[in-house]
């Protein structure tokens, strides 16, 4: 697993915290330089997460770590967006009980005990691993071998994540890779949507129920400053998904899973008895157990450092 500093048990949340947290609402403030992000101090403070009372087009803080804003939520033109500060939050790639199987994974088919008290959000992963143009590797365990050129969510052993085309942008030669999720080719590169985003929908960006272009879709991008941006909606074309990610500052992005059954995200509100999941995408069909119970498909968790 990414060797991040362990955090003490989570603090109990109370409704009054929403006021404090929302006091930090802001538009996209300048992101920290990549250098300071990678060398930032390890934080040993409780995660404080609250449910967004109202989701608007402006970024609103939904989680703080050690008092610092760590995750933001917004909704723009039918797209739910969530942004994460990688100095405070890291990603864990989980195998599903079908996508990857149950044996041999550091991060398996449910949120682990080591994550649960620091869990901020969890979202669906990529296409089924039986499909073409996918790859999945984690902790030295290979479910589907990596292929050059595919869009890749690369998490290094220092806990940082980058997104790029495998072999031409990622991985970094300086860092050791912990996990990689590959799905199709880059949806966004250099801040521009892929050229075939409107002209090759079904073949290039995945088959859909009813062979329609507009369907539930999701994606994950990274900003120039290293923040991660997740986007999802129930009625999106690849072009609309790419546009939403670019509008949110993504310079590179990968399309994650599509179609109504497979697009879902949760934010977790923590209580004394454990986290309570709240659905992120209006109209999402949902995942039984909200990823706290075993799930067949791969998924991503966003966990406080």
């Amino acid at each position, binding site marked *: 697993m990414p060797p991040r500093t362990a955090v003490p048990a989570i603090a109990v949340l109370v409704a009054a915290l929403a006021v404090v947290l929302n006091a930090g609402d802001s538009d996209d403030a300048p992101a920290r330089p990549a250098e300071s992000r990678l060398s930032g101090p390890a934080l040993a403070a409780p995660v404080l997460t609250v449910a967004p009372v109202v989701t608007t087009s402006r970024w609103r803080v939904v989680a703080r770590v050690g008092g610092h804003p760590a995750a933001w939520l917004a909704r723009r033109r039918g797209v739910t967006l969530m942004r994460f500060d990688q100095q405070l939050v890291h990603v864990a790639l989980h195998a599903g009980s079908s996508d990857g199987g149950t044996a041999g994974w550091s991060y398996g088919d449910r949120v682990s005990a080591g994550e649960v008290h620091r869990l901020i959000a969890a979202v669906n992963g990529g296409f089924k691993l039986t499909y073409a143009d996918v790859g999945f590797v984690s902790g030295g365990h290979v479910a589907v071998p990596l292929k050059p050129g595919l869009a890749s969510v690369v998490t290094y052993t220092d806990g940082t994540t980058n997104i790029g085309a495998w072999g031409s942008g990622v991985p970094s030669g300086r860092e050791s890779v912990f996990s990689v999720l590959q799905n199709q080719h880059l949806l966004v590169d250099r801040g521009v949507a892929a050229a075939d985003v409107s002209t090759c929908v079904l073949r290039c960006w995945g*088959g*859909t*129920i*009813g062979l329609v272009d507009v369907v539930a879709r999701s994606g994950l991008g990274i900003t120039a400053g290293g923040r991660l941006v997740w986007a999802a909606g129930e009625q999106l074309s690849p072009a609309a998904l790419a546009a939403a990610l670019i509008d949110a500052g993504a310079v590179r992005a990968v399309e994650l899973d*599509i*179609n*109504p*059954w*497979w697009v*879902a995200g949760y934010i977790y509100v923590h209580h004394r008895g454990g986290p309570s999941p709240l*659905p992120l995408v209006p*109209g*999402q*069909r*949902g*995942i*039984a*157990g*909200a990823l706290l119970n075993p799930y*067949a498909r791969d998924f991503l968790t966003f966990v406080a450092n």
Partner: protein
Amino acid sequence: MFGSRLAILLACASVTVGALAPAGALAAGSSARPATKSERSAILKAYAASDGNTSAVRGVYVSRSNQALAVVCERTPEAGVYASVFARARGAWRYVTSGAPGRAGSSADRTLERACG
């Protein structure tokens, strides 16, 4: 007197039949019947090919008036019941439409979707 006894007997019989009948048959109503084993297998194959989640399927019904029209009923964790309509053409089942029961597709589709309850 005889009439009231008959009514009681019929009521009891109705309750008994209701208790014994499969839940699917009750949900299907008069416009649809539960799919046979081979129909269900073929329809669910088409459903999975349409990227559906077969683990969420709670029933598969075929229209009584059109044996080439079927509906897959799903119970979702957060969005209630969904109905996905399939039609058979040249021996193969193909996706037609989906949505909340009674709200998607043609009049015939919507009637069939109500089998999902």
